[in-house]
């Protein structure tokens, strides 16, 4: 949205990263990109954004919780649900305390500022665009809740709860908020002119690549490769995928921040890409493995939703079919060919779906762009690529740094072997999911 005033190239960036927080605070006001403020609230736009905010929370709770919860073994389902709940709890508070300001406060290239800590300076009368600022804060807050929760699928069934809690808190401040600022808060990536309407870079690539790093760093599950680790309850997973699909309309069409024609476009491309991804994945699996599976369809739906996320307002209906078809093909390959080939244990395929799907979508936002920007088609595609590479490196490097430091300070981030075999529900939470005593 914000045309680049001064261009920064991604390779010049990494060096300055550690200084970012300081430099951000030191930025002069003249470098800040002003958020356009219209004085009046539009009740229709506000109605849609209130609804969208609720829908995006529904994506995490119960959507993602069930999607992941059904896929793990029954002895670990509560640990997954709990990790989603605590993301809503912890990040829900953190966002209001500092996250929002750190991401969307007026800042510099990399991060916002502390001006709106505890939402200082924002009142019920504050307006962002045509909606109350409080609603904008909430809509963005729901994004901040789901993004770290997306990662947990990669290291499910083995991470200790305590370190997980600390990890997501730090990750949101160190990885998520800066990326949100760079892309949506007027920072560097937005200045490049990159397209990321609803979060292919900020949400899906960031979580997908960080998740891969964390899964590899934590190591494989005990018995991985030998034991069958089948989903314990696929209907739960299907409910989860379905609620993710429904909620995603808030995520994507809500990112327009208004109930208008572009929101309609985003809704339509979201639906069309997702439907296409389901169809394509199911057909490929049918041809490749002889049977179409419901888990395939559910996974495909999420892959399609991920891929269209950055692109939903820049491609047209036809483009959205291509985005969805590509997601179906590429994510299928990532999950069934790439993962076994490389041998990492990304328990629930966070990387294959969110990392790969998010990158594909970010690229496709340029590839299939409906109305070419000032950058030109080639220029746009190049900027998209640059943003993809930057985001991948940024997420992986910072995630590894966080984990290494945590490891040094906290000791083992994993449960021990006995606990892994007993299951995290009992050992981490002293609970059992199902009990059928009379």
């Amino acid at each position, binding site marked *: 949205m914000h045309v680049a005033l001064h261009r920064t190239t991604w390779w010049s960036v990494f060096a300055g990263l550690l200084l970012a927080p300081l430099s951000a605070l030191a930025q002069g006001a003249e470098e800040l990109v002003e958020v356009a403020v219209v004085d009046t609230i539009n009740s229709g736009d506000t109605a849609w954004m209130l609804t969208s905010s609720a829908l995006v929370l529904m994506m995490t709770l119960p959507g993602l919780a069930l999607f992941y919860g059904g896929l793990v073994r029954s002895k670990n389902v509560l640990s997954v649900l709990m990790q989603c709940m605590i993301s809503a709890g912890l990040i829900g508070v953190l966002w209001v305390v500092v996250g929002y300001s750190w991401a969307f406060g007026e800042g510099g290239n990399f991060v916002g500022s502390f001006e709106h800590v505890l939402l200082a300076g924002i009142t019920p009368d504050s307006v962002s665009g045509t909606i109350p600022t409080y609603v904008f804060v909430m809509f963005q807050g729901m994004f901040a809740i789901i993004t770290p929760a997306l990662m947990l699928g990669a290291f499910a069934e083995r991470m200790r709860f305590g370190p997980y809690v600390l990890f997501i808190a730090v990750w949101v401040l160190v990885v998520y908020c800066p990326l949100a600022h760079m892309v949506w808060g007027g920072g560097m990536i937005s200045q490049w002119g990159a397209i990321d309407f609803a979060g292919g870079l900020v949400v899906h690539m960031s979580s997908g690549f960080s998740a891969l790093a964390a899964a590899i760093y934590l190591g494989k599950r005990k018995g991985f490769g030998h034991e*069958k680790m*089948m*989903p314990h309850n696929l209907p739960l997973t299907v409910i989860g995928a379905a609620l993710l699909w429904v909620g995603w309309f808030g995520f994507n069409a809500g990112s327009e921040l208004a109930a208008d024609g572009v929101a309609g476009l985003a809704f339509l491309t979201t639906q069309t890409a997702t439907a296409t991804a389901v169809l394509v994945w199911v057909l490929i*699996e049918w041809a*490749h*493995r002889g*049977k179409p*599976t419901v*888990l*395939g369809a559910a*996974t495909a739906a999420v892959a399609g939703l991920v891929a269209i996320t950055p692109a939903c307002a820049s491609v047209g209906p036809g483009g959205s079919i291509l985005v969805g078809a590509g997601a179906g093909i590429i994510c*299928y390959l990532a*999950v*069934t*060919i790439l993962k*076994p080939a490389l041998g990492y244990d990304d328990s629930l*395929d966070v990387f294959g779906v969110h990392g790969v799907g998010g990158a594909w979508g970010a690229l496709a936002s340029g590839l299939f762009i409906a109305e070419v920007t000032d950058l030109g088609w080639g220029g746009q595609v190049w900027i998209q690529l640059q943003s993809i590479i930057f985001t991948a490196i940024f997420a992986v490097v910072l995630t590894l740094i966080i984990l290494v430091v945590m490891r040094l300070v906290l000791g083992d981030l994993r449960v021990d072997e006995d606990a892994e075999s007993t299951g995290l529900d009992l050992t981490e939470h002293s609970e059992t999911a199902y009990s059928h005593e009379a």
Partner: protein
Amino acid sequence: MQLIEAIIKPSKLEDVKEALSALGLEGMTVTEVKGFGRQKGHTELYRGAEYVVDLIPKVKVEVVVKAEQGSQAVDAIVGAANSGKIGDGKIFVLNLDEVIRIRTGERGSDAI
């Protein structure tokens, strides 16, 4: 007295129950089990990977009978549970020392 333990296909339970009732054997205890044997398991798909599941759902029927009814009961189960396909199951016959009916404390054949 004998304890007859039959491992059968779940879909045959109703038939076995009827066959035993026809003999006047109106008590049995049923357990859901999984069986491993000659019958091939099935393949399950999980995100493109194939897994062979070789533990197949079966039902275990336990019937206690007087010794003299044993062979009749076995024949009835075989007749009802036989489909001629691999995996139809097995019958195990054990000798039973004592039977007690909890409600009355009756013992032996009376308790069956």
